[in-house]
């Protein structure tokens, strides 16, 4: 049994130079909450719209609840209104000529639900999204957050087992976004629907999803639980997207059991990484680590096992300090948390101040070097590598 299953799903818009979505394979279990995450233009919306039936794929197959709704080979195309799904749009897509009540009741009306049953469902849905008192207002006269709740109620009113979301919260302010996020997840759990949620905000994706699908130029880079993609990206693209601010090219020097020693190209420093990829001496790789995992020591005497450098710039971000450090042959990004502010004096972060950088092996990822992993966009990595050097 599967909620949604995509096989070799492809889409090339007529006249477009390259495909918007290229041979996507994905299985979503019933009741699962999956987010599609990726940068702008990577094909998230296109994928979602193909699942909805609003866009005709140029190849592949789609099944919803084990029912084939699209197949290029078998010439099957079930139109959107027959797929029995709900959808929440980025622009809310509320009809200006309808009241809140009739908007939420529209899918039920089209499904020819008897009036008493319909009214009961409308009331129940409006209750769930806390809009019961606005039932007779024009939907477009509500505030942004309220409008999105109407859209949410409409998407779920029909009792669809699959609900699609296309960046539904991107037009809302931060506070409202948190509240809506909670509400969306609650509704998903209470109604037991399958949800596919498109976003380009990694934090949102991680907070909401059972599983995250990271996409890039029409392909899937990684599929995994929120924790997997956050802590164990499998390539430089996902690592970068998940907030690994430091991604540096390196070469394996020695391999010793569970760990390997690598040398950072150009910088020359040697660090230990966990050898979970069967590295061999001389292998090229990328090491990635978060700025917050960089240990800073203000000292002008180099210590063994640490990388010496000088402070270049410091950016104050409220709860953290972003520190850019010049090391021989490159830069390393570090971060100081609010609770550690007290450890440093006012002049400690002056430009040119010498520092020692320490990294612990458990927090360093080893990733395949550019060219070793097909799913990684070449230009992007070249630019990545060039900024690192």
């Amino acid at each position, binding site marked *: 049994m599967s909620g949604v299953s995509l096989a070799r799903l492809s889409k090339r818009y007529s006249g477009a130079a390259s495909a918007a979505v290229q041979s996507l394979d994905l299985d979503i279990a019933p009741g699962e909450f999956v987010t599609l995450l990726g940068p702008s233009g990577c094909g998230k919306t296109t994928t979602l719209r193909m699942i909805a039936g609003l866009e005709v794929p140029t190849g592949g197959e789609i099944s919803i609840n084990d029912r084939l709704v699209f197949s290029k080979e078998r010439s099957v195309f079930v139109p959107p209104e027959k797929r029995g799904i709900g959808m929440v749009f980025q622009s809310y897509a509320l009809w200006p000529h309808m009241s809140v009540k009739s908007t939420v009741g529209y899918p039920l009306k*089209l499904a020819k639900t008897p009036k008493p049953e319909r009214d009961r469902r409308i009331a129940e849905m409006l209750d769930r999204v806390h809009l019961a008192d606005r039932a007779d207002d024009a939907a477009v006269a509500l505030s942004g957050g309220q409008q999105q709740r109407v859209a949410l109620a409409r998407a779920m009113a029909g009792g669809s087992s699959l609900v699609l979301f296309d960046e539904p919260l991107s037009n809302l302010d931060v506070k409202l976004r948190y509240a809506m996020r909670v509400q969306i997840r609650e509704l998903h759990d209470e109604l037991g629907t399958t949800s596919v949620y498109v976003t380009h905000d990694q934090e949102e994706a991680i907070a909401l999803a059972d599983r995250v699908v990271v996409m890039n130029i029409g392909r899937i880079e990684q599929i995994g639980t929120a924790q997997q993609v956050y802590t164990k990206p499998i390539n430089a693209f996902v690592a970068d997207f998940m907030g690994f601010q430091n991604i540096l090219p390196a070469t394996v020097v020695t391999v010793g059991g569970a760990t390997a020693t690598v040398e950072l190209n150009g910088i020359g420093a040697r660090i230990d990484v966990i050898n979970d990829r069967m590295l061999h001496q001389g292998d090229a790789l990328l090491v990635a680590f978060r700025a917050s995992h960089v240990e800073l020591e203000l000292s002008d005497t180099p210590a063994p096992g640490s990388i010496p450098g000088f402070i270049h710039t410091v950016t104050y971000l409220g709860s953290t300090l972003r520190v850019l450090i010049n090391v021989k042959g490159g830069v390393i990004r570090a971060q100081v948390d609010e609770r550690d502010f007290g450890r440093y004096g006012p002049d400690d972060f002056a430009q040119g101040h010498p520092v020692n950088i320490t990294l612990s092996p458990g927090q360093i990822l080893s990733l395949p070097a550019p060219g070793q992993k097909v799913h990684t966009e070449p230009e992007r990595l070249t630019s990545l590598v060039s900024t690192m050097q």
Partner: protein
Amino acid sequence: MTDEKSALFQGRAQWLRFRPSTGVFTTGRSMLIPILVGIFLFALPIIMLGIGAFRNAPPGLPAEWSFDAFGRTFSDPNTYKTFGISVFIAVVSSVLSVALALILVFLVARTTTPLRRFVTPVMVLVIALPPLFYAMSWGMLGNPHVGMINTLWFQLTGLDTPIVNSYSLTGLIAAMVIKGSGFCYMLLLGPFRAIDRSIEEAAQMSGAGRLRTIIGIDLAVLMPAITGVVILNLVIGFEAFDLPLFLGTPANIDVFSTQIYSFITDVTPADYGGASSLSLVLVVLVGALVWLQQVILGRRRYTTVSGKSYNTTPWNIGGWRWVGTALIVVYVVVGVILPLLQLVLGSFQPFFGGGKYSTINYEKLFNNPATMQALGTTILIAIIGGAVAMAIAFIAVYAITHNETWLRRVLDGLTWLPFTVPGIVLALGLSWTYVTIPGLRELYGTVFLVALGLIVAAVPIATRALQPALIQINRELEDASRISGARPIRVVMGTVLPLVMPTFLAGWFVVAIVISGNLTIPVLLSNVKSPTVPFLVYQLTTMSQTSQAAALLVVELGILFFGTLVLYFVQRLVWSRTRRRLKATIAATTARADVGDASEPSLVSAVAGVEAGMEPRP
């Protein structure tokens, strides 16, 4: 299989390929019917006209290919005379219209001239009144013997030489300038208002005086827009029919459109070949101008104005403002008040220019079943034809905006064809077409063909009215409908149509007005048995029953005016109710204060917007 064959096979396979539709008109195949209908309605008349120019017999009769008609047309010195006069009239009236409009726009948009607020409503009226009205009333007003102006002049001075004569080159051009400046005004007001004030301020900071700023900066910045309007006016000038027919023909001044008409009506047997070949010349000329305007506007339109507009204090032009007021007063008097007055007064004279004022003309009208029938027919054609034109436009615009193949451009081009073709040429092409096609031939001379012709001529206006409204609808509103379980047709009827309904109704109204005042189409397509009001008005005038004709026109305009009034109040009523509901909800949320007025469509702005926006394609 040979290469050629397999290529053919593949082509066929492409066509038959599995290509599901995501909505109405999204696939290439679904465009077949709209395009075929479009070709029949809009392209065929012009094609038939082209063919007709190379045939040596009238439509419907057996004929052979020949260059006779062309030879005759181009060896006739009269053709070149007509060409010269047409160009002269078009150029002079276009330049003068734009100049007059610019002055008025400047007075309204930038100065404190008293009475400036009257100009825009008056211009809407000038645009809404049909050319036939101006042709008729100016013919009467400036009649050298019995016209109101000259009668007054005779009485004041005791002289017996007329001061104005409508039946002359000057009279014709003056009438065209008065009517044409309405369009120009509406087209220039927007760009003028949208000029970024900071460039003016920059000029002033550099030491330029105010007048210098206006001439050196504003006019220069507006130049592409002005050029576009001038060219559009040239097109309108070449296409004008009613005014040259009423004012030019009696004075032996023939322009293209009236010459084409006289080839058909004034010679026996009608010279269809001559008319067609002359038409082709006109089509080429107008086509070139429309193309030129596209090039100029297409390239530079959006660079002229920033879109931001600031409300700086209007310029106090001192004593000059009284000159401005005087100009406004003269324009209002000459452009609206005098013509209306003359038409109404004339309609109460037993014969034009004399007799005791009485209602005899109206009695005759109301007692004549034929006239009453024409009135009924015209109103019916206006209402039903207007609805049909709007429906065609709706389908066409929806298909054009939703189709994902190159075919949408084909359909787009087709719906614009009648705009590029002068009314009289279209009428001629339509008669070629309908006479040649068996089945339609039997309908020739009946109201059905007249109605069809009027609808074809009105589609570009209808398209223009609907397009902005349809484009504005967020596609996700339709998607949401689909997802909610609506089938494509239901999406159109249940979501799209209600959303464009205000525009649809306003457009319908405007199109009905345009149809009811159209003389060019019925003049060739209808006959004595199936006249429309404009056709009857023209006939009565040629039979010197001017006051009778005036009465008929007054009755028609009166009905239109009354209809407008009723619609206006209905609209107010409906909108005030919806608005109250919106306001209540807004007050409750205090979220979006701008919903109230922004979406109110008004009939007046619709008339102005639709007709003034008649430039081809945005």
